């Protein structure tokens, strides 16, 4: 009997240890940086994978020049999840690069007031929480349809001007022309839930007359999505994209890398995305003439002439007692250096190829997609991001949209799933 008890106890202990392991599978991120001794040491969390290498190099140079030890970390985890594990461990970074919504959620408790900083006057994109500037905008990013003009012109034989194709009818006619000209399927669609829900579907909220009121009506369950004009416009366009999708047979098996390569090399001509996609496209052999255009729609509200975007990725400085006064000062110096020092500017615009969010920074050496974004931004043709989605929005709505993409539900069913998601979700306070 005793032996039996012992074996059961041992089993329980082993299960317990497995459960403990299962519960703590967060990764710690990969650290790298300089190790020049002495001086203050600050840590920076970078959440843009494409600039990690450049950032690590910069940290080494900056450390040598300024005598401040800078270490840059990156994590594959989603930003919110990674910040949650760091704060759960009470081990925050000095400076963290997060998404806009994280500044709102983390800001009140964890971010330092930066209202008095020199760079504030040079930007329209800083984030304020409770009247205090807390988020330093890293760059401007925008969403739209990426195009490969070289591939299009090779078939049509005339110069491609995206302004000619802002309505869905004109766009469809062009697609037909491309198909007739030998490009079997001119469109790619990213099936990732964040692309479908947080980037494409998100525009349905953002292009409403009053996005905030529309979201509130979704929470309240009073919005009629299936009969909403913007919803139907965007879904009409999505149907066309689906029809001409190169992976139409199995759209949810399309791999992002493959699609980007096809776009870069001109095998397909259009894909919905954003200027950050350049980080993948540049690894292939991109055609000379590429760019971004608004999502074509049969509408007269002007939204088919604008990209959707704004400030993207924000630095905030941790305000907890874990960070000493010297570290805070070093962190503030670093942010000012990015904006006001020529080397800092070059880092943002040339080495990382980011569209600067500060009016005093000029940018001539941008990649084609970012160049499009900058020209739309300079012309005031950007529709603002809506930054207050619930944290599970991209995953839940993304799953529904994947079903729609795979042909498992129709438009009415999709609208119903999205409506039921919103009405069963607790509103985000902001």
């Amino acid at each position, binding site marked *: 009997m005793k032996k*039996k008890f012992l*074996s*059961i106890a041992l*089993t*329980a*202990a*082993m*299960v*317990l*240890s*497995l*459960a*403990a*392991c*299962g*519960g*703590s*599978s*967060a990764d710690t991120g990969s650290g790298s940086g300089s190790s020049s001794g002495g001086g203050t040491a600050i840590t920076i969390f970078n959440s843009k994978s494409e600039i990690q290498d450049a950032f690590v190099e910069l940290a080494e140079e900056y450390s040598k020049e300024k005598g401040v030890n800078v270490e840059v970390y990156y994590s594959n*985890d*989603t930003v*919110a*999840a990674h*910040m*949650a*594990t760091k*704060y*759960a461990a009470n081990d925050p970074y000095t400076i963290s690069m997060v998404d806009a919504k994280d500044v709102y*959620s*983390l800001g009140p*408790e*964890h971010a330092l007031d930066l209202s008095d900083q020199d760079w504030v006057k040079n930007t329209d994109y800083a984030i304020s929480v409770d009247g205090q500037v807390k988020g330093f905008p890293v760059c401007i990013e925008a969403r739209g349809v990426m195009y490969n003009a070289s591939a299009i012109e090779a078939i049509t034989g005339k110069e491609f001007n995206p302004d000619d194709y802002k309505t869905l009818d004109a766009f469809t006619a062009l697609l037909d022309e491309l198909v007739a000209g030998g490009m079997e399927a001119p469109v790619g669609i990213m*099936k990732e*839930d964040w692309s479908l829900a947080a980037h494409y579907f998100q525009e349905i909220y953002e292009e409403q007359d009053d996005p905030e009121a529309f979201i509130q009506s979704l929470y309240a369950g009073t919005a009629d999505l299936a009969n909403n004009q913007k919803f139907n416009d965007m879904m009409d366009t999505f149907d066309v994209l689906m029809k001409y999708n190169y992976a139409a*047979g*199995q759209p*949810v*098996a399309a*791999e992002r890398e493959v699609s980007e390569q096809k776009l870069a090399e001109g095998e397909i001509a259009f894909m919905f995305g954003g200027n950050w996609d350049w980080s993948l496209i540049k690894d292939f052999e991109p055609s000379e003439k590429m760019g971004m255009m608004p999502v074509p729609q049969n509408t007269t509200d002007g939204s088919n002439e604008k990209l959707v975007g704004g400030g993207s990725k924000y630095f905030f400085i941790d305000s907890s007692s874990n960070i000493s006064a010297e570290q805070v000062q070093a962190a503030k110096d670093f942010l000012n250096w990015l904006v006001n020092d020529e080397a800092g500017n070059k880092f943002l615009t040339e080495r990382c190829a980011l569209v600067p969010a500060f009016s005093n920074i000029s940018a001539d050496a941008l990649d084609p997609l970012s160049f499009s974004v900058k020209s739309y931004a300079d012309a005031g043709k950007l529709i603002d991001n809506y930054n207050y989605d*619930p*944290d*599970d929005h991209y*995953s*839940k709505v993304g*799953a*529904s949209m*994947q*079903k729609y993409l*795979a042909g*498992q539900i129709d438009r009415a069913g999709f609208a119903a799933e999205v409506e039921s998601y919103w009405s069963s979700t607790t509103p985000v306070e902001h």
Partner: protein
Amino acid sequence: MNTNTMSYKTKQFLMFAGVTTFIFCAVVIVPFIYGLYLTFTSWDGVSVSKPFVGLANYAATFKDGAFWQALLRTAIYSVISVILVNVVAFILAFLVTSGVKGQNFFRAGFFVPNLIGGIVLGYIWKFVFNRAFVSLGNALSIGFLSTSWLATTNGAMLCLIIVSVWQYAGYMMLIYVAGFMSVSNDVIEAAKIDGCTNMQTIVHISVPLMVSSFVQCLFLTITRCFMVYDVNLSLTNGEPFNSSVMAAMHVYNTAFTYKDYGTGQAEALVLFIVCAIVGVLQVYIGKKAEVSA
């Protein structure tokens, strides 16, 4: 020297088990109790304050349909995987102990997949399912191979099961090999002399004598399957349309991605209880079946 005093026993215990007990408490018992405390709060994982909410998280857990679906999915996945892993492992073990040429090489070969981490393994197989099989299917016009299995609900589950079997069968094989080796040759010979066929020898002599191997293997595979996370993450990441999210992944998403730490922790506790019941029950039944020669 009196060895029956309390202080002597305490010293003995501390000397032999003190360090391990301390570590076990520090990394398992304490976090477990702290986690239990967190299930009664509405902590979001980031905030400084942890408001006490009583049993609200357990109520949320019971109302979270996606969690119960994930748990059911995990149970189905576990049952199929456990059976397949053990059948394959047992057959492999039998083959590599039956005296085929180069059996040590085969033993090492079958064990290797277990040395590759789950994340890497998931990415390798993702490539195989998405590209290699599809190219092969298209080239040879084999219908069921020409589309990616990972794109369909049932296909994604099948892929997860295949990869798990491939990963664990080698490890379990080693345990079964040890089981086969522990059966003394005397009894095998005696059975042969009495006129047993090979099959009869295995079923009536070897298997009953190596029940402890089965108990161990079943325990290991059941718990591992219920806790699967790494392969799930890198192979399917819950796609298509969140239909391959296993229980552990749902718990992680709820706690960290959806920032609902308390509910995630409560769901983790439910998962733990389910695993504990299954594991203990299985060991209890297995022990009963054990015999000795």
